[in-house]
């Protein structure tokens, strides 16, 4: 097995280290041998990414969270196989992660939910203040951290966060859930140049051709499946493969 670090740093297998002895470790270990359609070479390649933004604890929480949002199964890659955690970690070091897009000036008003986001948190704040609160709440209830819960337990917690019935502070659970879900789907479906959608696995699963860009010959092939595999806008993804 060759080991490669995408961010050019030392070959430290952050996730493997943190996976030891965890429930997630069992899931993820299996994942590494999951035969990726059309990417058999890649299936044998060990994946290593060292998070820059997330601490090891947060990385465990994030990984075990997105693993339930988009689980691995026979339909196609799960969020972990798609390298969604790497995507999210990398996004946190972009202007977006720092909240530079959003209007974050006070004061806060009590308003109808229909007026949209009314917090002063940046995406980084949501994770950095949300995950420790989640950790405490889960420790209190289960006596073990989130990533050590089994899949059904994690699903129950995530479901409570989705409804907002799990009380977290200062980042409400519904907000944290929404942020993770949004970033998770972004990482799953975005072009692989951003670190997720590994080998365009999600695009292959749904049949999205990515940056093909010219459908002049197919626009009036009515009802016929588009035959070409996806391409990425980045050099690494262009090889495609069916």
């Amino acid at each position, binding site marked *: 097995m060759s080991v490669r670090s995408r961010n050019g740093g030392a070959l430290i297998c952050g996730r493997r280290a943190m996976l030891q002895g965890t429930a997630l470790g069992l899931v993820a270990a299996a994942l590494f041998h999951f035969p990726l359609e059309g990417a058999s070479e890649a299936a044998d390649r060990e994946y290593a990414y060292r998070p820059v933004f997330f601490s090891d604890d947060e990385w465990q929480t994030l990984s075990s969270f997105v693993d339930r949002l*988009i689980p691995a199964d026979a339909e196609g890659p799960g969020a972990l196989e798609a390298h969604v955690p790497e995507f999210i970690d990398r996004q946190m070091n972009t202007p977006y992660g720092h909240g*530079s897009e959003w*209007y*974050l000036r006070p004061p806060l008003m009590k308003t109808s939910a*229909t007026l*949209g986001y009314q917090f002063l948190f940046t995406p980084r704040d949501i994770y950095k203040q949300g995950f420790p609160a989640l950790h405490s709440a889960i420790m209190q209830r289960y006596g073990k951290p989130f990533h050590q819960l089994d899949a059904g337990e994690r699903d129950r917690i995530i479901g409570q966060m989705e409804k907002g019935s799990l009380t977290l502070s200062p980042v409400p659970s519904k907000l944290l859930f929404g942020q993770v*879900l949004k970033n998770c789907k972004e990482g799953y*479906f975005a072009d692989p140049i951003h670190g997720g959608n590994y080998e365009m696995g999600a695009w292959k699963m*749904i049949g999205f051709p990515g940056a093909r860009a010219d459908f002049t010959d197919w626009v*009036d092939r009515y009802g016929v499946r588009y035959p070409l595999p996806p391409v990425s806008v980045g050099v690494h993804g262009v090889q495609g493969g069916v």
Partner: protein
Amino acid sequence: MVSRNEKHTDVVIVGFGWVGAIMARELTQAGLNVVALERGPRRDTWPEGAYPSSIDELTHNTRHALFLQPSQSTVTVRHRDSDVAAPYRQLAAFLPGTGVGGAGLHWSGCHWRISPVELRLRSHYEERYGKDFIPQDMTIQDWGVSYEELEPHFAFAESVFGTSGQAYKVNGKIVGDGNPFDADRSTPFPLPAMKNTYSAELYSKAAAECGYHPFRIPSANASQAYTNPYGCQMGACTFCGFCSGYACYNYSKASPNVNILPALERESRFELRAECDVLKVETDSSGKKATGVIYRTSKGEEVRQTADIVILASFAYNNPYLLLLSGIGQPYDPKTGEGTVGRNFVYQNESGVTLFFGQDKFTNPFIGAGGNGVAIDDFNADNFDHGPLGFVGGAPIWVNQAGSKPISSAAVPKGTPQWGAHWKKAVKDNFQHTISIHAHGTNMAFRDCYLSLDPTYSDTAGRPLLRITFNWHDNDVKMIRYVTDRMADIGRAMKPESMSVETKEFGEEFDLRHYQTTHIAGGAIMGTSPKDSVVNRYLQHWDVSNLFVIGSSAFPQGIGYNPTGIVAALAYWSAKAIRERYLKSPGPMVQA
């Protein structure tokens, strides 16, 4: 503090989107020196549109690379006067543009004219349905300009945009299977209609079976190579599916950058200054004459640019915003109904139906073009009898397959969870097998929907934010529910396995959390009297006659079609009046 004065110019234009580019072209041709000030950066097909980085969904659609970020400037929103407004902190419901080309660089390309009755909406409804038909609090009115007056400008704008379409009637003669509800045209479209996608073809057939009149949407995505009257060139659209939110890599989508700027750049009388954010319009001591503008550069320097003519050509609500910041005209007061600046703020009132066909039928929704598709106008404008229905307005209904991308538009049947194995399977099972139909409905103007300055929030430059007070009214909910039922009938005739319907409920609040459309209008409306409009029929300010305020801000109420076509025609109409009348005898072109 103004730190320096720029050399005086004949004309200063605020904002360089479609209106700015058209006015700059027309007025330099008239021999005037023109300075255009654009808040955002320089942008063009290269590098913003360069393939392949230009068609990256995350960067452009999700992270809004080409849009005005709320951190730089935003608005506040509330539903009613008694509420406190809160800032629009994250882009969602609408996406204001910025930069050279404005929203014209990253629009879709649906390029419409207008139904003649919509230009005299109040008169028309009163004549056909009686004065009592229009609710008391509905402040709709006539535009003060007729379709016949605008027709040559629609025709010329289409020649500039390289619009693809099929005409129905040219000079009174039926010429093809275009929209039978269209008004007469003086010219056919400059390019033939685009090819139909499978979805548009299926929709067209089903709509005809239902007794309606399908036609191909006029599209500013070129169906073949084209050179416009300015000598600017376009390439044939390849249906890449990345229009709205993206700069076209292929020179196929009309934009100020592709279709006008190359001609302007050869013009010595024209100067474009990017990253110049106009703070206010200055007037002389009489308040009747604009003397120029003050703007802030990217270095934070405040500069005065004096000019004989000032043209506001910025995004929809930024025109009235600048008037409010500059203290020009009387701000609208919903309690008394007096004042005009900010009055009749409107939006677009939409609904949709998604059809799921199952795995054997490949609709390939990732193929697309922003202006492509098939529509029916049977329920738009006053093409149907409103008498028994009891509402004002309508909607074109269309399949406008602009290209589904997986982050933003992986449709799943209603009731599917948001996450987990079921969600994943639903996305997989449906991505290549869906068709969306939309109703792009009118939004009428109401007494309590308006723009004003926010008392609490400010932007990075210290300006108070613009405050939007807006909510849906029963008239518009009634309309969209009626039209949605007709749309669902067509959907069922397309024989999907299942169908999801998104419509509005009575009492539903305006919801900013989900993208609807950036078709915002009103607030500095045109009309026949200074009592109820900001500008006259030539888009000239009633009180400050050397100030022109042009854009969708001039719409007295919402229209059924996308706004760009009528905005471009209004700009050419105003430019003609300036060239042929105003320059010979500066002063009000309409006596109040």
